[in-house]
């Protein structure tokens, strides 16, 4: 299943892209995208803070990431004295970020230094790292992998403290208990380990598919009558790949109950989960689940024992683009991650694309079951990024490397890989030193835009689209291509069409030629292009005449009315211009006064007297029509009687209707009651 099996082929792949908010203040949002870049965004102003590309970013892509807890930072900071920037106020800033990779190594990245802090490799995993967890206060790091093992690391020495087999299959998720003495791991089943002895304390059934997330939801047991040993009575939550249910489990004192206590149901598989811990019995657990379909579901529930039915969400949040005009419907924008702010009353939403996410703080005050936010993300693109980058690293690229771009076979793609944004930043810096004049720079930019015009990009896909559309007769696809107005683009597209599609294309054009002239004109452009570009090919076809016969007949039959139509057009033009002259006259009358238009009326008369005669000839056929005009004339006479100021016009001959018309029309705006009278008389 080439493309469709993305979901079904590799069930172990986590749903989303690894990402995390920095702990406590949530000032940063780290995101390891599929192209191997690690990006750290500032949540407050939605700017790119840092970007880092591991040297082995293609072979060992980042599979998981975790921020070091803030407390640990504070404790550790005095030990590293090399850094200057750390001196003031840095102690509470979050710093270390652990990245797990697909090849088994773990990287520690320092956001303060903006570079790699250390690597944890030796004695670690030899397969994909699935999950990393920092211990709250011991300075240890726990990781689990596809190689079925769980490893405990000492971060200071970068050495393995302990390594043990966690499951019979790959271990997919980890979580450390609130008191720091227990560890939850999820493989085939969910296990609870005692960290000191590395022994299994409890078993839980788990899910049918790999568990993607594990989280403790409470830090105190529900009933305080019993003595609390740090773990018994606590609830935790698990979500799995391809599973629309999130299960909640309780750690019981007796080892009998293995099934889930309750479950939450969502619309699609969970991608990112965040929750607020409930610290006492009365306070409900708030849960925000981001699903693969781009929605966020919010749950608010007091965990209190067994519940048979899956709970549905209290509130659903969606984001959509504003629909512009009537036709375009709003499109949903996927939400990528959501985290509760420290006040527990508002939510940080990350939405848009992975490469340029937008981060926004949304207050949760409403009781509505459904929220749809309308956001326009089309305008927040590249320029913002360039200005905001503070530190960016790119891999060293071999200049001989070729970039393969999809396209139709036989045509080499003209696209070059887009220069990374960093180069521009660097060149800006350099320009200060090298003194490139603005003129030169502008010149260079001009050339750039000429070379990388739209056409190059689009013609590459237009022939493909058109060929596919013709093959499957996909109406929308064909519309998209054929309704282009750009002549240059049409020409290039036709030039690149494979020969066997020419005849189907002509047939499609034949079908579309018989429509409204608005759209049919475009089709003629296509037809002309095809005929000129592929003339030699077409003339070699033995059955050209039968193939194009219909087309020829269709065009010929349409062209037959050309003469008559031109005639009609002439009449209409006359009509319209007359109308416009009339308008100008009335306008000038209003501004200047009544004396001047009399001369204009004379001019009109002289120009159009011949036309009037020919009209009379036609009108001779119907007596009614003649009568009509007579009526009109007499009317106009009346008008002129009323209009006594206009001496000049009255002096001219009375027979001519045309002159009268313009004169009478001037007046008609004033007395429109004559109009219905006229109609009734005609009948």
């Amino acid at each position, binding site marked *: 299943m080439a493309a469709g099996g993305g979901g079904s082929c590799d069930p172990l792949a986590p749903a989303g892209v690894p990402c995390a908010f920095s702990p406590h203040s949530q000032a940063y949002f780290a995101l390891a995208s599929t192209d191997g870049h690690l990006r750290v965004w500032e949540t407050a102003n939605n700017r790119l803070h840092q970007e880092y590309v591991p040297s082995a970013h293609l072979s060992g892509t980042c599979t998981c990431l975790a921020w070091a807890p803030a407390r640990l930072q504070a404790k550790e900071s005095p030990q590293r004295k090399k850094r200057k920037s750390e001196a003031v106020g840095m102690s509470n800033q979050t710093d270390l970020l652990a990245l797990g990779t697909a090849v088994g190594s773990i990287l520690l990245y320092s956001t303060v230094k903006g570079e790699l802090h250390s690597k944890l490799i030796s004695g670690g995993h030899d397969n994909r790292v699935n999950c990393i967890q920092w211990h709250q206060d011991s300075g240890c790091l726990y990781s689990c992998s596809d190689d079925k093992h769980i490893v405990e690391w000492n971060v200071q020495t970068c050495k393995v403290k302990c390594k043990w087999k966690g499951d019979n299959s790959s271990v997919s998720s980890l979580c450390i208990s609130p008191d720091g003495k227990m560890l939850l791991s999820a493989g085939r089943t969910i296990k609870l380990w005692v960290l000191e002895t590395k022994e299994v304390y409890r078993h839980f059934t788990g899910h049918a598919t790999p568990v993607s997330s594990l989280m403790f939801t409470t830090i105190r047991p529900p009933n305080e009558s019993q003595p609390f040993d740090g773990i018994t009575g606590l609830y935790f939550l698990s979500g799995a790949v391809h599973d629309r249910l999130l299960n909640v489990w309780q750690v019981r004192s007796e080892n009998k109950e293995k099934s889930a206590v309750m479950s939450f149901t969502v619309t699609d598989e969970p991608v990112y989960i965040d929750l607020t811990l409930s610290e006492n019995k009365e306070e409900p657990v708030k849960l925000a689940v981001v699903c693969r379909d781009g929605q966020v579901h919010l749950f608010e529930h007091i965990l209190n024992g067994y519940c048979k039915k899956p709970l549905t969400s209290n509130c659903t949040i969606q984001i959509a683009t504003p629909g512009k005009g009537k036709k375009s419907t709003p499109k949903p924008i996927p939400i990528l991650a959501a985290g509760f702010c420290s006040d527990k009353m508002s939510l940080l939403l990350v939405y848009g694309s992975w490469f340029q996410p937008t981060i926004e703080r949304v207050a949760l005050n409403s009781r509505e079951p459904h929220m749809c936010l309308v956001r326009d993300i089309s305008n927040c693109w590249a320029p913002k990024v360039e200005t905001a980058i503070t530190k960016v690293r790119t891999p060293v690229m071999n200049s001989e490397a070729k970039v393969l771009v999809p396209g139709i076979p036989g045509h080499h793609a003209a696209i070059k890989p887009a220069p990374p944004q960093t180069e521009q930043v660097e060149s800006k810096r350099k320009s200060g030193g090298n003194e490139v004049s603005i003129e030169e720079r502008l010149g260079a930019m001009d050339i750039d835009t000429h070379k990388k015009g739209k056409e190059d990009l689009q013609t590459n896909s237009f022939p493909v689209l058109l060929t596919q559309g013709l093959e499957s007769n996909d109406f929308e696809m064909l519309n998209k291509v054929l309704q282009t107005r750009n002549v240059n683009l049409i020409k290039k597209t036709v030039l690149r069409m494979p020969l066997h599609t020419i005849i189907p294309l002509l047939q499609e054009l034949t079908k579309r030629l018989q429509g409204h*002239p608005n759209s049919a004109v475009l089709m003629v452009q296509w037809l002309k292009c095809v005929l000129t570009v592929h003339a030699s090919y077409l003339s070699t076809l033995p059955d050209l005449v039968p193939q194009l016969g219909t087309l020829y007949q269709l065009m010929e039959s349409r062209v037959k009315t050309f003469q008559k139509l031109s005639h009609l057009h002439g009449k209409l033009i006359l009509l319209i211009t007359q109308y416009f002259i009339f308008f100008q006259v009335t306008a000038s009358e209003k501004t200047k006064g009544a004396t001047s238009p009399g001369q204009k009326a004379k001019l009109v008369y002289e120009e159009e007297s011949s036309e009037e005669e020919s009209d009379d000839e036609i009108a001779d056929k119907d007596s009614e029509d003649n009568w009509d005009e007579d009526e009109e004339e007499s009317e106009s006479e009346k008008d002129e009687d009323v209009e006594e100021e206009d001496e000049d016009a009255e002096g001219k001959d009375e027979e001519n209707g045309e002159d009268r018309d313009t004169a009478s029309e001037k007046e008609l705006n004033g007395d429109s009651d004559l109009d219905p009278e006229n109609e009734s008389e005609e009948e």
Partner: protein
Amino acid sequence: MAGYKPVAIQTYPILGEKITQDTLYWNNYKTPVQIKEFGAVSKVDFSPQPPYNYAVTASSRIHIYGRYSQEPIKTFSRFKDTAYCATFRQDGRLLVAGSEDGGVQLFDISGRAPLRQFEGHTKAVHTVDFTADKYHVVSGADDYTVKLWDIPNSKEILTFKEHSDYVRCGCASKLNPDLFITGSYDHTVKMFDARTSESVLSVEHGQPVESVLLFPSGGLLVSAGRYVKVWDMLKGGQLLVSLKNHHKTVTCLCLSSSGQRLLSGSLDRKVKVYSTTSYKVVHSFDYAASILSLALAHEDETIVVGMTNGILSVKHRKSEAKKESLPRRRRPAYRTFIKGKNYMKQRDDILINRPAKKHLELYDRDLKHFRISKALDRVLDPTCTIKTPEITVSIIKELNRRGVLANALAGRDEKEISHVLNFLIRNLSQPRFAPVLINAAEIIIDIYLPVIGQSPVVDKKFLLLQGLVEKEIDYQRELLETLGMMDMLFATMRRKEGTSVLEHTSDGFPENKKIES
């Protein structure tokens, strides 16, 4: 008295989509019911026995739905990993399914736990099927092997290791219990015989094979990958036809219950229906996402399509026997109708037939009584102009023939004249109406020239009309240029034909003309 002849309404054929029996048949489904599954729906299979339930494989579960139920009536969820290809046995009582971990499991429809588990494949099993004798199961897996299992002993009987890539599809013959075929990503489709240890036939598809299908007779084989190909098995695997109607990989195939139509679903989100006699596309369905699985119920009553986004779309056929139940008005007995009809003429009798009463349309009645304005009004009614513009045009033509079109058009107020102009603007550019309407437009201009400028509404309409005519003229000018080009092309053709002594083709062009006109 000479009878009035009703106006002949000219019908004009339109090029393009035609309504055929097939479009009527395949459009006759209700709006789809959509069911959200837990993951991509990789297989849908109908039980061959009533009540025609169907099994849906998605993620690690198999749901069984009743024909009209929207909730699963049964669920098999005892899979450790993704399940594939849940298939019913011919009697509808057993169900077999493969799994990502390499197991093959056999379920009883009424039970919950598997009856049999066949362990032997080392990688994911994507295809399983029952053989015609009901006692064996064929499975194909990602470890490149095809295995035949015995149900009673739950033992492996045979293993074929001829494929050199993943085996992703297969099906067993409905007639011969020993024959089955498999399709693989190594671009081949192979036919195996359980009586031998080797494949008996192999065809080269050219692309990874995603789905295979045997015709019930067993004579034809259909394989789907990037394209759909039909092979004749009796001629030793000769390629009959290659269907290139999808622009992405075809993932599933299905035959209609009559065997007359072949359906294919593809990642390009379309299901196409082919006739199995001509192998032309006769109908096409659009869906919202890439299609992974497709199944038709008994008698084509239901179409079920599974998609990558986990949505299952179920379409039911509209029931037809609704109109029968209406109470009918009591009619006179048949006897009264035939009274006197069978009376034989005697020698001296003169037979006088009562003139048959002709039914006239309303506009015809008006025309008959020379109420020309009223007749024109009637056909200029918006319902008529939009639905049947050809009637309006025919009446205008008739009035023109009688020479009274100017009279009929004259004497209209602002609203009526704007109706007429609206109709002109809408239809003037259609070549079939153009000659008549241009004439009418000229007459209108002649009549209403004196009153131009009195009503802004009418003036606007005239402006619109002028814009349209201008565009049409530009368009026709372009067409004339193009015609010139084509003449040039045809001229080269003629010369060639003249030199080669083929007489029958030289008159092809005029002949064509005749047909068209």
